[in-house]
């Protein structure tokens, strides 16, 4: 096993052969440009690439789709080794933070004129794809994951609360109201308001004006009050017994969706598919309305061009076409990728969208509204470290009945210990 870990770590240094292969192939056919593209999950980009190739017969695009973790690990290895990376690589929003210090491994998309299309995209989304000082652009925005509140109408009804999306939004405009409703639901039905600690905390975190780091990569959570407030709020709900304890993505967590053993799920647009998959018999019971206090974003990706690409210009032409509003609308219709271009939100497909599963609510509109409310924040390259330690602290408060203040201090210690090594 140890050996395996080593191999993983340093196989990077030993895979120099593959690049020279690629080069010789490319030189052989100078007219036809071959673009390798790596994506993860189901993007439906294959279909769009076909369309593009029809109009651009000199370009051949090969799309390779792998599973989320494998994709990002393979990409990290290739970029670290300086060989084996594709011409176009899709990178998820949290993973893009890992590359903050690796600007030299990517093309600056501003060099290709990306400034001209900036206005078509949501500002907060665009900003994450830039370097801290805004001079370097890693990638063009693809889809986003604006968050909203999913809720079980049957649980609300049993608690004697309104069930209509507009009324629920009015009932729970902010987090104080959310806690009050949690008390009512607990009292009337015995059920928790949310299934999981993490999602409630994340929702609050996403509404903070600053999160874990500033542009200088300085840790803010001790200086700025917002994250501690989010922590305290979550702790309060935990201690009152308003939150369930199913781990995200566990089978129990999925089951609870079908059984309706909790009232709300604070989740992004792409969670619609997860809910439908886990709760096929609950059509009409899950509804969607605005998140209390604002909105956040979870997930979504960027398309980048690694420096190794020999055809950066052609690659850029393709990706800027691929993420243009017209194509994003197609991706939304085909695969449910939520567009990062607000102009699409006025399209008739959006205006008249209806989802029978979610009680005929125009979910597209709810998420479009949320998308425009997301705050522009800088995440920072060590975002994952802080997030994981805070969630650990919250889990300890819930599962071990640990003292929240002590857990918070311990978490900060653990965070600092890891940051020292960066």
């Amino acid at each position, binding site marked *: 096993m*140890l050996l395996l870990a080593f*191999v*993983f770590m340093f196989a990077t240094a030993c895979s120099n052969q593959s690049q020279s292969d690629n080069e010789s192939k490319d030189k052989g056919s100078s007219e036809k440009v071959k673009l390798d593209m790596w994506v993860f999950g189901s993007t439906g980009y294959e279909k769009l690439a076909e369309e593009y190739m029809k109009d651009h017969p000199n370009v051949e695009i090969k799309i390779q789709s792998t599973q989320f973790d494998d994709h990002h690990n393979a990409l*990290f290895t290739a970029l670290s080794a300086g060989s084996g990376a594709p011409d176009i690589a899709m990178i998820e929003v949290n993973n893009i933070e890992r590359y903050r210090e690796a600007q*030299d491994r990517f093309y600056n998309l501003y060099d290709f004129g990306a400034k001209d299309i900036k206005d078509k995209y949501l500002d907060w989304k665009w900003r994450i794809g830039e370097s801290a000082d805004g001079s370097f652009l890693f990638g063009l925005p693809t889809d986003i994951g604006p968050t909203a509140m999913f809720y079980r109408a049957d649980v609300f009804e049993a608690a004697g609360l309104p069930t209509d999306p507009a009324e629920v939004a009015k009932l729970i405009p902010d987090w104080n109201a959310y806690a009050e409703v949690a008390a009512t639901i607990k009292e009337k039905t015995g059920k928790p308001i949310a299934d999981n600690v993490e999602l409630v905390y994340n929702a609050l975190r996403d509404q903070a004006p600053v999160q874990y780091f500033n542009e200088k990569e300085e840790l803010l959570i001790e200086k700025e009050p917002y994250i501690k407030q989010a922590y305290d709020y979550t702790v309060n709900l935990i201690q009152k017994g308003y939150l369930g304890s*199913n781990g995200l993505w*566990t089978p129990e967590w999925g089951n609870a969706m079908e059984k309706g053993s909790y009232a709300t799920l604070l989740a992004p647009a792409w969670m619609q598919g997860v809910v439908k998959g886990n709760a096929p018999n609950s059509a009409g019971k899950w509804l969607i309305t605005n998140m209390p206090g604002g909105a956040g974003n979870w997930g979504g990706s960027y398309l980048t061009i690694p420096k190794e690409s020999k055809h950066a210009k052609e690659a850029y032409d393709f990706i800027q076409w691929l993420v243009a509003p017209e194509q994003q609308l197609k991706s939304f219709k085909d695969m449910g990728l939520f567009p990062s271009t607000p102009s699409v939100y006025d399209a008739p497909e959006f205006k008249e969208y209806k989802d029978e599963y979610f009680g005929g609510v125009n979910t597209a509109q709810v998420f479009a509204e949320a998308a425009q409310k997301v705050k522009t924040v800088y995440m920072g390259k060590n975002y994952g470290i802080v997030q994981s330690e805070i969630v650990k602290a919250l889990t300890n408060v819930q599962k071990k009945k640990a003292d929240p203040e002590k857990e918070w201090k311990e978490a900060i210690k653990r965070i600092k210990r890891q940051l020292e090594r960066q």
Partner: protein
Amino acid sequence: MVSHNHTHTAVRPKGLSDKKKTALAGYLFISPFFLLFAVFGVFPMLFSFYLAFQKWNGFGEMTFVGFKNFSLIFTDPLFWKSIYNTIIIGLLGTGPQLIAALILAVALNSAIVKFKSVFRVAYFVPNVTSIVAVAIVFTVLFSEQEAGLVNATLNLFGISPVSWQTSEWGAKIAIATMIFWRWVGYNSIIFLAGLQSIPKDLYEAAEIDGAKKWQQFLFITVPMLKPIIVFVVFTATIGSLQIFAEPLIFGSGFREESMTIVLYLWREAFTNNAFGTASATAVSLFLLIIVFTTINFFASNRLDKSGK
């Protein structure tokens, strides 16, 4: 050798002597292993010794930091906790397992059991099952919820549900159980091979002398199996120092209850991009394995001497 052959080769037009050709062919035949081992074994090992003294995030320049990586991990309580966890999980996972394996092997070796080859295959199946699949299934069994299979079973006996993933002993017992299940069959097959090499006449003689079954086991089987037991303990020790995939999948989010040394190393390298401290951890683990192997070695030597 060379000069001696020279007179012969002078007669030949060109090329190597037959002897050398055979030798060369031989080396070529075995070379794939050595080449692969050099690239994927020796080089990474040496490189990680080098990296242990550098600061490197996977990109950009490495900077020499001397022993700083070591002082960083040695002052981290989580590092020591991970060593403690590894040893505890190792003991929990291998101690009872080796005893069970020996008993299973003896049972399988006795004349009473039918369908021996079926059992042998069945024993071995867990070992060739994907470790990830095993860990996922066990995660479901050891669910924290009251309705989880293990918790529900405990409930029948009036034991209140255990937080398998977040409690100090729950996590260790669950992971040790995974290791037990995965390796008990493998080790009993090895024990079985050892049992079958014990001459039958020893047992016959003992029986004539009036030795009971348990006496035969204790005074014939165990001493005769000593080399096998030493081998199994050696590999089990090294194996348990490298426990990784089970806690990675089972203990979500690198929790300290299930943090093992290799998992600590992995977190440093692949989620925190701190390859320097990761390599320092690897070097420390290497030294730790040497220490444990040495202890094992002397202990088994002792055992050998006292046996004679």
